[in-house]
């Protein structure tokens, strides 16, 4: 008797797809679409574009499924495809120019603490965006997706140590940004909020 598709492992579903059962691929989509959308949003920041990445990644995965040998997990393989798609999308976005008149320059009327929080969040997110793609990828996969370095190295198609080094370099760069910005420390001390925990450590490290 055939087991429920939901209870099958990714590899079992893939075997069924390879034998021509398209509904098994549907189960893979259901299982991974949410995680993939979250990953896409970390790179393109726009739901429509992130959705395009998800769609493209699944279509490519379906087309190339015969080449999937199961050396890494299906999730790692799928994330690798999605990241390549996201990178291409970012390149395309960079080519597009932004009309200054379309840029929203208004400042939201919120309390000071909220403003500081927003300012630091914006700065941090902008700095993450500035990181080289591989460093950003390692950081995103480790911090937000909670993946192991083994999984990250599979997704990034690189040695374990390289994945770890990319992650470390990303963190060092971000730390340097905050070390260079004295105003951020002052804000944080004044408002007693967001980055309180970092200040003593920064001072201790000199």
């Amino acid at each position: 008797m055939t087991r429920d598709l939901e209870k099958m492992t990714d590899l079992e579903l893939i075997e069924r797809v390879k034998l021509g059962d398209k509904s098994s691929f549907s189960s893979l989509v259901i299982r991974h679409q949410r995680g993939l959308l979250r990953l896409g949003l970390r790179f393109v920041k726009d739901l429509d574009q992130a959705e395009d990445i998800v769609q493209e990644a699944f279509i490519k995965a379906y087309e190339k499924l015969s080449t999937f040998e199961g050396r890494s997990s299906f999730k790692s393989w799928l994330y690798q495809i999605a990241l390549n798609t996201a990178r291409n999308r970012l390149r395309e976005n960079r080519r597009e120019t932004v009309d200054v008149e379309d840029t929203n320059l208004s400042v939201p009327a919120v309390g000071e603490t909220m403003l500081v929080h927003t300012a630091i969040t914006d700065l941090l997110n902008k700095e993450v965006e500035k990181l080289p793609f591989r460093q950003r990828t390692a950081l995103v996969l480790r911090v937000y997706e909670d993946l192991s370095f083994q999984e990250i190295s599979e997704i990034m198609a690189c040695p374990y140590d390289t994945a770890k080094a990319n992650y470390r370099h990303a963190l060092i760069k971000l730390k340097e940004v905050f070390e260079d910005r004295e105003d951020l420390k002052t804000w944080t001390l004044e408002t007693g909020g967001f980055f309180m925990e970092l200040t003593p450590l920064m001072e201790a490290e000199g």
Partner: protein
Amino acid sequence: MRPQARTDIKTMLKNADEVEVPMDPGYYHRLHDKIMMKIEDQSVEEKSIIVPMKRLKLQRELMKKY
């Protein structure tokens, strides 16, 4: 000291996380359907490419014969 500092930057990043995926299950139903529909379309497209190619090959063979 360093590993602790790194953990804190990790916390900072998590605090600054602004990514929110849609919560509505209907959204994922629609996304799933779009993906599966595109896969179906692609399969049809592949078939429609294969059929004319086969027809062309057959025509060429017939031309050679007669």
